[in-house]
């Protein structure tokens, strides 16, 4: 279906309910859907399971912890090993108030890709012999051990791209594809903030990184400045 264009990020989130499983694209500052994160904060939706590669390291996802909207995070970076200044997520995690499923970043990307690609699981050497393997099937093949990892899907993905056309095709800027491009394939409802909306046909076919079939809603927003705050 052709994507629907929304006027404001708050409207674009219409229908996200308490308890939703939400994927959040971006890598720290790169193509982070910060306007949509702020709208989700204003909306006050609670008991969220958030899937994002990082939380609280310069990205603004940590702000959802201010009103305790996050019940669980599935992430690759969320809690520092060092004793640096804690994010809200870290405080709540250390207090046992939020749940965390820590996933190696490559396994996270591949699980999301699998969720979008109809793959029921895949075998990886990443995590074998570590805490990540706990509770998972380990299969032997060609003299090695492999973890069976399962796909991840979400009810909603909130993403950022650089440009969209009216059909819903997306183009990312620089290192902006990161988790945005994979998450676009793996959620029932895909909502994308972009810096510019152009007429259909203005993005060249080889310039489109996420084909329109994956995109449900688009909203134009000025990007928010975010910055890694060190580790």
């Amino acid at each position, binding site marked *: 279906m052709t994507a629907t264009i929304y006027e404001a990020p708050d409207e674009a989130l219409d229908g996200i309910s308490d308890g939703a499983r939400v994927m959040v694209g971006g*890598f*720290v*500052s*790169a*193509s982070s859907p910060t306007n949509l994160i702020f709208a989700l904060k204003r909306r006050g939706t609670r008991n969220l399971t958030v899937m994002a*590669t990082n939380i609280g*390291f*310069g990205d603004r996802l940590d702000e959802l912890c201010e009103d305790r909207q996050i019940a669980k995070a599935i*992430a*690759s*970076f*969320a*809690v*520092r*090993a*060092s*004793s640096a200044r804690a994010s809200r997520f*870290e405080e709540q*995690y*250390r207090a046992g108030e939020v749940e965390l499923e*820590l*996933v*190696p*970043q*490559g*396994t*996270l*990307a*591949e699980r*999301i*890709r699998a969720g979008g690609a109809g793959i029921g699981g895949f075998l*990886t*050497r*990443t*995590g*074998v*012999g*570590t*805490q*990540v393997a706990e509770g998972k099937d380990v299969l032997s093949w060609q003299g090695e051990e492999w973890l069976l990892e399962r796909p991840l899907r979400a009810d909603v993905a909130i993403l950022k791209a*650089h440009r969209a056309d009216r059909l819903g095709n997306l183009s*990312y*800027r*620089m*290192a*902006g*594809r*990161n*988790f*945005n*491009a*994979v998450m676009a394939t793996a959620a029932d409802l895909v909502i994308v903030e972009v810096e510019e909306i152009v007429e259909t046909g203005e993005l060249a076919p080889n310039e489109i*990184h996420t084909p329109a079939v994956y995109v449900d809603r688009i909203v134009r927003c000025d*990007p928010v*400045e*975010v*910055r*890694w705050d*060190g*580790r």
Partner: protein
Amino acid sequence: MAAEHKPRLTRELVAMRVAQELAPGSTVNLGVGMPTLVAAFAPPDANILLQSENGILGYGGFSEEAYDQDLVNAGGQPITLNPGASFFDSAASFAMIRGGHIDTAVLGGLQVSERGDLANWSVPERGGGSIGGAMDLAVGARRLIVAMEHTTKDGRPRILRECTYPLTARRCVDLIVTDLAVVEVGPEGLTLREVAPGWAPGEVVTLTDAPLTGPRGVPEMEL
């Protein structure tokens, strides 16, 4: 002077020694922390392709002036691009990493065992830790170099018979470069290859829990 008070290599010197390991034309991923510093010491004419797991191949150096929030490395630092750089998504990036297409990864370490097990993501007594791309890089890179301090702040060895911290991956480390030594991991265990200037092999052995072979006639690092 007691060994524990002798000067050790700075982080920059460790990075400089690691940079000597990078083969011309190779593809290299540098982890956050000390490994990041290696970029500054890679010979510019060696055509090393730096990969960043957030979806960049061929980045250059770090530049605050060039700051663009869509162009950061895996540590969130602003970077520049070399000619021939390319972008891709995270699934494609880790396909590159896990598929064995990275010649060398340099990661920080908390502990390394005599078999080359690595622990670098969690300090259990602090109750935290994040994995990031470390487990994927440890398993996927053809050669793994760990750059770390030889001992903890209170002087306990980080090179151990067995890691006590949660593992990043088993039997993954090929070379350890510390502020005191260069240690190679082989099928028979650890070999002391070089010591920091001014340090005797025996002093390094004392600060190492795992057995080190070849401690006689070990040369000093050339920096």
